[in-house]
């Protein structure tokens, strides 16, 4: 038998093994976070690369709503990488069969493999589009999986060459193989779900507000279109996690069902006396802009989230130039977008007073100087439950806010 006839199976096998490795990395990273702690994540197209802390693209994918299914039923949901693991294991095993059988593998086996081997590629294309359009970033481990899917599909496709030289084979076996593929794809999810810990005892164990009634008319009102539950946020518009939580709630349709108030807590020592250095330089200016937005405050806030990196760079430029207080660069960015009136408002004594009352509200409640913090009524949602487990937590503590 000429070695060339085995090349498609070799390509498919390499692809399946690579896919299995990358999918296992993704599952491991996801599962590690079930302990409610932060962990380094695998984030490389090179198999064997060590996990790392700084992995913005991979973390964005990990925390995105597209990383798992059934998030209402299980804390964190069922990671989709489990389906990939199961299917790559099947494709790897089948590739071994094709490799050993060579030309003696039946025509129906080759056609079946070519047909199903394209499915990981189709899913990969879909996920890649989501990455680009929804997450605005690409996760390196996912790219590894995409490339592996391409190899599997390629191997399957190449196996159709010289199909006429193969023996015919029956059509019963492909049905059995298809059922096996389904079983392989689902089996990991059963193992995962049956081993996953119960997070319910941990929900709502992160304290309550001491002073439940905020000073009247001070906090930012963010009432959704169909509010069913009161919520209080402590947020900083220049905090990346705040942006992520905000977008998560918005994407899930939860934000529209909240009667939310926001206490602004800029992590910038220019106005926040609780800090000795600026964690988010320029946050005080941006927060004042939000407060001055008045009936467009929500719009200004969402603009700040959208332009967060740009605003942070502007704030950093002012800090580096020794102009943290005057913030000429950042204020010019704000002025260009929102006009001179907002700058005048930002400089007013009334705005300064209002911001101070926001900070004072944090003091009155002795909260941690960190953002974001979410309170359902007066019950705090634990930080650990604001990312992977957010939907599950809301389902348990406030099911009415889920659409």
């Amino acid at each position, binding site marked *: 038998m000429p070695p060339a006839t085995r090349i498609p199976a070799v390509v498919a096998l390499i692809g399946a093994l690579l896919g299995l490795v990358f999918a296992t990395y993704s*599952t491991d990273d996801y*599962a590690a976070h079930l*302990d409610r702690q932060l962990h380094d994540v695998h984030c490389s197209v090179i198999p064997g690369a060590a996990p790392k802390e700084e992995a913005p693209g991979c973390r964005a994918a990990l925390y995105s709503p597209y990383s798992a299914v059934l998030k209402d039923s299980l804390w964190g949901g069922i990671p989709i990488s489990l389906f990939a693991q199961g299917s790559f294991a099947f494709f790897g095993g089948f590739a071994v069969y*094709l490799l050993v059988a060579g030309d003696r593998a039946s025509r129906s086996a080759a056609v079946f493999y070519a047909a199903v081997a394209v499915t990981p590629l189709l899913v990969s294309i879909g996920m890649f589009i989501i990455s680009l359009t929804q997450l605005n970033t690409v996760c390196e481990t996912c790219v590894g999986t995409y490339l592996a899917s391409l190899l599997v599909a390629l191997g399957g496709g190449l196996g159709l060459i010289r199909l006429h030289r193969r023996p015919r084979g029956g059509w019963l076996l492909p049905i059995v193989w298809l059922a096996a593929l389904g079983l392989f794809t689902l089996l990991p999810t059963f193992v995962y779900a049956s081993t996953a810990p119960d997070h319910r005892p941990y929900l709502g164990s992160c304290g309550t507000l001491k002073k439940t009634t905020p000073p009247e008319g001070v906090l930012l009102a963010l009432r959704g279109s169909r509010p069913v539950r009161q919520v209080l946020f402590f947020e900083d518009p220049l905090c990346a996690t705040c942006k992520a939580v905000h977008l998560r709630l918005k994407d899930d349709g939860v934000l529209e069902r909240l009667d939310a108030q926001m206490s602004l807590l800029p992590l910038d020592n220019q106005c926040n*006396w609780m800090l000795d250095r600026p964690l988010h330089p320029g946050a005080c200016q941006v927060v004042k802009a939000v407060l001055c937005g008045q009936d467009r405050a929500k719009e200004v806030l969402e603009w700040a989230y959208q332009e967060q990196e740009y605003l942070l760079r502007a704030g950093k430029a002012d800090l580096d130039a020794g102009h943290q207080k005057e913030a000429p660069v950042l204020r010019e960015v704000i002025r260009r977008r929102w006009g001179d009136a907002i700058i005048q408002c930002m400089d007013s004594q009334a705005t300064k*007073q209002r911001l101070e009352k926001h900070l004072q509200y944090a003091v009155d409640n002795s909260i941690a100087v960190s953002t974001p913090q979410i309170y359902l009524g007066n019950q705090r949602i634990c930080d650990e439950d604001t990312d992977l487990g957010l939907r599950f937590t809301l389902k348990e503590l406030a099911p009415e806010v889920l659409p």
Partner: protein
Amino acid sequence: MTGPMITNGDPVGAADEPRRSVLLAGLAGAGATGLFLVVMLLSIHSSVAGAAERLKNPAIKEDSKVAIADHAELPYCTPQFKKVLERVLHSCGLGDSSGRRGCKPTDVKTFAEINDDDFNALFRPLKDRGAVILFKTGKYELEEGAKRLVEDRFRDRRGARYFFIVARASKVGNVDRNRALSQQRANSVMFHIKDITRDDPELEKQVGMLWLGAEYAQFSTEYCAWITSSPDEKCTEQAINQSALVSWVDCRL
């Protein structure tokens, strides 16, 4: 049909060869698939069970040192300053619900337990934070400039916990009259703050009042260098003591 094949050797073995190869390939494929499956499931189980175990028995975390939101505290809050501050709070009605408000000279002398100069020295770091509200001789009413300065200083809280009004009288006049006058001056400032805050109930926990008459801790002209409510008028020792020092105090207790 089978004749030539019999003469050519082992026809049964030759016919079974492809079948055996396919069977072997099937076994290899099934074996590899089974191996991948077992390794994969064990890996998943191990990852999830490990996380479950860590969740149940978390490692002892290092102190994350997340700050708790609190009032401002600046370096001038020395232990001595805090000691006097604490006594003022407890003795002048801020630290309990006794309903008592303010401290008169004899109280201050008793609880402060420090001499006049040391008492005044405690307030020196507040030079840029506070202000001295000046009154005409024998008067306790706030002039317009004084009202604006009180308001300006009170609005500039910057996270401070306590606001102090320390009123005095000059040595012109008798002891009793000066005690009463300094108390009235402290009250004038307090009433104005109540006006601008629309009687905010929080004031009771924020504002500490002391009136010293002319008996205790008289200012030297050094305090003329502070921001005063009458910057254009000549500042003498008598003028600077016809006053109320106002300032937020950036100390936690």
